[in-house]
């Protein structure tokens, strides 16, 4: 008998989060993410944690931010409609620098859409859903096992950079079951909430020493009174009307992610070393892409897969490193071309990017991708 257990992606998200130290979950039921709330309701009391079902998603994200400010690693899980409702407070979390993890198990939209069907139409929303310029880290798993390990990383990045991290799942991975051998819990679990404030500047709550990006975080109720606000604020954490201070603050928030992109971005590459064609994809779409790449390789075609694991910020450096060897690029995603926009921006307008997408709630198959690759070959030859 093997050590593996049969697990659903949504269950793996719960187990990984708990391994990462998540002890607070607030949420509202929504297909196809509900198993994450259900799993948290079962598991959290077993580890001394707390689960609460709130009255809506607005309240869920607010409670998560409150619990995080009070010292607990906190998470919520939702799908498109609920993710839309959470946007205002995701921006609050970014501005007030409150770490948390927001799981969005994407389903087919817009609006209520097809509640039980897979899609990846929230990619741009994950980046630009809340108003104003703000930093975003978003990760997207493509298997049940990766869901477990990657959500641990999501918590670590949230702690390290003091910012909400979006865990962008899709129905394909959320509802898929696979046998997984859960790795031993990593001892590399980051928890910044034991620190006192940075020295200097009278130990102000949001003081950041020169050359660093992230203020130290101390939870409420542990001896140092301070103020948290979503207003533009100075190092003391109090609102300011100074445009100079406001500009510096937002600049630092953006810089802390952009300038640390090497630390934050991860990609998975398969058969890319000699690839002349790269198939770019993320999340559950990678399953069909891998099948297609293997099939194309068997037919002697130099095709590889390039999969951003960190989907925001987009891993453009890793992609651009591959550009000299590539003759063609195909973007495959379950939407109308969202990562496509980011990909085209990264590679520049003189390099054509082919696209295969789907917006009807059905899954792109390996055959679809192989057909697209053949079509590309035919047109490229014609040119």
């Amino acid at each position, binding site marked *: 008998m093997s050590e593996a257990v049969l697990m659903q992606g949504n269950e793996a998200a719960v187990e990984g989060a708990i391994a990462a130290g998540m002890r*607070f979950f*607030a949420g509202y039921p929504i297909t196809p993410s509900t198993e994450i709330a259900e799993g948290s309701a079962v598991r959290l*009391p*077993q580890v*001394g944690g*707390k689960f*609460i079902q*709130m*009255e*809506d998603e*607005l*309240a*869920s994200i*607010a*409670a*998560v*931010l*409150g*619990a*995080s*400010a*009070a*010292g*607990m690693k*906190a998470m919520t899980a939702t799908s498109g409609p609920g993710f839309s409702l959470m946007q*205002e*407070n995701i921006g*609050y979390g970014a501005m*007030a620098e409150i770490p948390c993890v927001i799981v969005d198990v994407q389903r087919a939209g817009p609006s209520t859409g097809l509640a039980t069907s897979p899609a990846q139409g929230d990619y741009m929303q994950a980046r630009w859903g809340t108003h104003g310029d703000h930093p975003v880290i978003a990760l997207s798993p493509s298997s049940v096992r990766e869901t477990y390990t990657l959500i641990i990383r999501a918590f670590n990045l949230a702690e390290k950079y003091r910012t909400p991290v979006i865990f962008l799942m899709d129905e394909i991975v959320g509802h898929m079951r696979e046998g997984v051998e859960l790795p031993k819990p990593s001892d590399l679990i980051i928890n910044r909430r034991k620190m006192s404030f940075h020295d200097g500047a009278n130990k102000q709550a949001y003081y950041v020493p020169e050359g660093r990006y992230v203020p130290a975080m101390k*939870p*409420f*109720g*542990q*001896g140092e*009174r*301070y*103020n*948290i*606000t*979503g*207003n533009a604020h100075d190092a003391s954490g*109090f*609102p300011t009307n100074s445009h100079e201070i406001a500009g510096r603050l937002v600049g630092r928030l953006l810089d802390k992610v952009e300038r640390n992109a090497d630390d934050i971005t991860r990609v998975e590459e398969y058969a890319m070393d000699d690839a002349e064609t790269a198939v770019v994809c993320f999340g559950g779409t990678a399953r069909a892409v891998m099948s297609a790449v293997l099939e194309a390789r068997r037919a002697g075609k130099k095709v590889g897969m390039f999969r951003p694991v960190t989907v925001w910020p987009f891993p453009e450096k890793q992609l651009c490193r591959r550009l000299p060897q590539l003759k063609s690029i195909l973007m495959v995603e379950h939407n109308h071309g969202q990562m496509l926009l980011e990909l085209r921006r990264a590679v520049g307008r003189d390099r054509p990017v082919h696209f295969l997408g789907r917006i009807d709630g059905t899954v792109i198959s390996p055959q679809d991708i192989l057909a697209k690759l053949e079509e590309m070959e035919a047109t490229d030859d014609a040119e």
Partner: protein
Amino acid sequence: MPSDLIHQYMRIDHLPQMWCPGCGNGVIMRDVAVAIQELIEDPDLHFNREDFVIVSGIGCSSRAAGYLDFNSIHTTHGRAIAFATGIKFANPKLHVIVLTGDGDCSAIGGNHLIHAARRNMGLTVIAFNNNIYGMTGGQYSPTTPNGERATTAPYGNVDRPFDIANLATGAGASFSARGDVFHARETIDIIKQAIQHKGFSLVDVYSVCPTYYGRKNRKGDAVDMLKWQRENLIPTARYYSMPEGERAGKKLIGILSINDYPEYTEEYAKVVDAVRKKGKG
């Protein structure tokens, strides 16, 4: 005493506060500070200053969180009670006090108010109720009386108003009370009881907004508005000794309902204990 209070419990470098001359919010903020001070200084009680967290939403009222020298969090419009729920549940030893307004807690945040009342988690909500949206310049709120004027009710308000204290009672709040600006001592005592109450507590404190609500509706200046409170808002003992006929049009200042319902974080802790015992057994 007042200056002592300011030095001890307010953030001097952030004063003077931003409210208009004659606004009732400063008085209510002082009532809250005095109530907390008296609880902390009472040797028979064991209130620790570091355990207080002040949570506010958006609006005139919500600026109070920044002036009070405690752990404070100024959140988003309507969501203060939901943030507070997360804070209290994460660390139940904290005394979590929500400072909110009539718009913040009964319009955009109305859903959170009724569910917090139902859930009975030990939060204290102080509603600074001035019958108007002040921060945005005088639009009608859910507590603007029917027929009165606001910038968005130029011909008189068609809506019927909420009575926030009754709303909380109706939603199952285990403690619901009403206070006002004029009866400061009574209001301080009510707030003290609310904070000591185990479970959800709400105090609907009638503020005055001479700048918008008063001016739009010919209520006179702040003094005239406080006189109205003196005549029409009646503390408990006097209210119940009045002949019933005289109570018409007047409102009670005091506790409207108080019940000993199980408190949420305590009930959840029991669940956790039971689950963990079972897990070990």
